[in-house]
Every structure is written in C-alpha cells, then in structure tokens.
C-alpha cells in the first residue's frame, strides 16, 4: 500500500475537512482517538438501550389484550433486539468487541437510556412507550442518520424505518383506549402523566451542561444539540396528543406565537443524573432480568457456538 506519511495536524485537518464537506468517515479511516471513544460510548449506550428496552414492554406480551396486539408487540420487541445487534456491530467497526460491551452491561458498568428504568404497570404504558419514547428516539435517530460516521448512520436509516411502525402501533393502541370507557381514557392520561418528563429527559442533559458540544458538532457526532432535539420533539408531539384529548402534565405548556415553538417546563435533570447512574425506580429489576436471561440462554448460545461446517472455523 502507498499510504503517505502525515503529521497529526495534517491528518486532523484532513479529517475535519472531510466532515465539513459532508462526507462520511468509514472504518479504516484515520480518526482522532477522542472521536473513536465518543462514538464507541454513544453507540454502545444506544445498543444497550435497545436491549434493556425490550424488558418494560416484553413483560406485557403474555397479557396483551387480543391476539393482534400480542403479535404486534412480539414483532416490536423483536425489532429492538435486532436494533441492538445492528448497533453492537456498528460499534465493533471502531474496535470494541460485542462480547466486551455485553460484559460491561451485565457487570453494571455500562450506561443505557434513563427511560427504561420506569415501571409499566398498565397496558396504556405500552402505547405511551410507542408514541412518546419511540417518538423521541426517532427525533434523535434521524439526527444521527445525518452524522459523520458511516456505519452508525447506515444502521440508523434501517432502525428509523422500523421505529415508524413502533410509533404508529403505540398511537393506535392509545387512541383506542382514549375512545373507550372513561376508565380506559383515564388510564391513557395517567400513563402520559408518568412518562412525559422521563421522555423529555431521555434527550439528554441541557446544552449548558454539555461541555463538548462545539467539538461534537464540528465532528458530526451530534448534528443538533439536546435542547434543539427536545424542542423538536415537544413541537411534534404536543399537537398530536392534544388532538385526541390527551394533555401533558405541564401547566406552563403553551404555543409561543412569536417563535412558533411550544413553551414547556424543563424536566428535573437531577433525577436524570440519578437514574442514569443506576438509582432509578427499576434499575435493579432491569439488570436482574437481563442477567437472568443471559444465564438461562447460555445453553442455547453454547449449542449455537458449535460450528457445523468447516466455514465456521476461523480463517487462518
């Protein structure tokens, strides 16, 4: 190979110029160590969130009201497992193995989205997760699809395509409840009341608390700031909810005619920090369930690991 010798400064300038031109960075390209680390951290947390995200809804599969809802929910949960696999693979192209990331999750060293540490006591929670949580996830993921790292952006396109089904089934489920009995409508509103602020938190710490934002933007790791994403989500979802008579639990929520944006009360970011660090309502329950599933699935993985053909043997 004819790879010319270059100084760090030359390489960095080339890397940043490529991103400024809107070109993607691909595996094998030179990249600053900090870019690699930030992406491994982001993609890893994203993958863990998909895997842990199966749990709050998965528990409703045996109790889904009706066969069609049950099949839909199974398909949705399967999608989340698939998203986790796609994301672990994207992170692997940066040099960290899937095994290593899974171990970190099981050992409790890895972080994942705050929002999956809240309980799902009613069927309406399944609807609200589809509508709000997957809605916020799509706002975030559409941004990542425009990000600078090729494998992550490509994975996002596929994931967003599937998430739009998640949002629609959530809306359909919840709207059916809203037009049902008074008790069902109340159940839907109650779910919104419990999930509204955790979903706002899901889009991350406020910009004033994001010290590396400028660099992450320049490197195309973030295309929009957390506060921009949060505003985009609120503007999108508030008119949708109101149109079917659901109201977010915020007395200070109004459309600012001048800016065209909805004014809303910020969530409690100390709660976000606490839940992310392991001290939320269901963190222990989620990790226990994940470890149990890992242990109970071991015999399946061991059976699968035995290659039946010579092509399974690693190349020498």
């Amino acid at each position, binding site marked *: 190979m004819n790879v010319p010798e270059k100084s760090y400064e030359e390489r960095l300038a080339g890397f940043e110029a490529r991103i400024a031109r809107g070109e993607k960075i691909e595996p094998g390209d030179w990249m600053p160590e900090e870019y690699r680390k930030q992406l491994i951290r982001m993609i890893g947390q994203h993958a863990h969130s998909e895997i842990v995200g199966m749990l709050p809804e998965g528990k409703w599969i045996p109790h889904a009201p009706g066969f069609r809802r049950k099949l839909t929910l199974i398909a949705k949960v399967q999608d989340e497992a698939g998203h986790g696999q*796609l994301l672990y693979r994207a992170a692997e192209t940066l040099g960290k193995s*899937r*095994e290593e990331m899974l171990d970190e999750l099981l050992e409790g060293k890895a972080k994942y989205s705050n929002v999956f540490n809240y309980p799902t006591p009613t069927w309406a929670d399944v609807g609200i997760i589809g509508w709000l949580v997957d809605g916020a996830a799509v706002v975030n993921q559409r941004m990542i699809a425009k990000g600078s790292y090729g494998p992550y952006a490509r994975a996002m396109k596929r994931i967003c395509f*599937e998430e739009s089904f998640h949002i629609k089934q959530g809306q359909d489920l919840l709207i059916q409840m809203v037009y049902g009995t008074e008790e069902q409508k109340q159940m839907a509103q109650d779910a919104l009341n419990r999930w509204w602020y955790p979903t706002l938190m899901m889009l991350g710490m406020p910009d004033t608390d994001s010290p590396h934002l400028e660099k992450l933007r320049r490197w195309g790791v973030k295309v929009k700031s957390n506060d921009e994403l949060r505003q985009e989500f609120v503007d999108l979802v508030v008119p949708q909810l109101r149109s079917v008579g659901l109201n977010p639990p915020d007395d200070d929520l109004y459309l600012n005619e001048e800016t065209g944006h909805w004014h809303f009360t910020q969530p409690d970011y100390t709660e976000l920090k606490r839940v992310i660090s392991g001290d939320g309502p269901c963190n222990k329950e989620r990790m226990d369930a994940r470890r149990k599933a890992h242990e109970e699935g071991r015999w399946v993985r061991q059976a*699968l*690991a035995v*290659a039946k053909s010579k092509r399974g043997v690693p190349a020498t």
Partner: protein
Amino acid sequence: MNDTQLPIWEVFHQEKRGAPHVHVGAVHASDEEMALQMAKEQFARRLDCVNLWVVREDYVVKTNYEDPFFFARNTDKKYREVHSFPSPLKGKRRE
C-alpha cells in the same frame, strides 16, 4: 466462557430477480446456516428479498481509504468513456 462473540458475516441482499446483491450489514453466527437464518431475521423481515449472500468478514479483501494512488487517474483515459464518442453516426449518413 466466550460465547457471544461469534464470527462476523457480511450480508448481501437481493431485492428482486435482476437486481444486484447489495451490502446491507453484518451478523454474528457460528456457521453459514446460522448466518443465513440471522441475515433473514435481521435484513429480510420486512423488505422484499429473493436471495441472500453471507460472506465471512475475514475473507473480504479491501482497499485502503488512506491510499491516495489506488484509484487515481494520472493519465487521460477518456478514450475508455462512452462520452468520448458523442453521436458518431450523426451527419455521417452515406447515400
């Protein structure tokens, strides 16, 4: 025991007969049968698909993005391109 780090297989997806096989991603699997099953679940669950290829990632030979010379065209090779021969028949008709 290391039982979650299976070999990696690149996946190529053909949407319909006559279409090219397009690289769509990768799966982890211990052998080709499992790789095809995983590829089907991961990449052909919703989209139309008539054929899948899986290739062990370590058998894929790649060029280096950092090599500026590999794809460079230092000499004029326009003679290879169709546009070098604009409408050869135009105005050349012999009675």
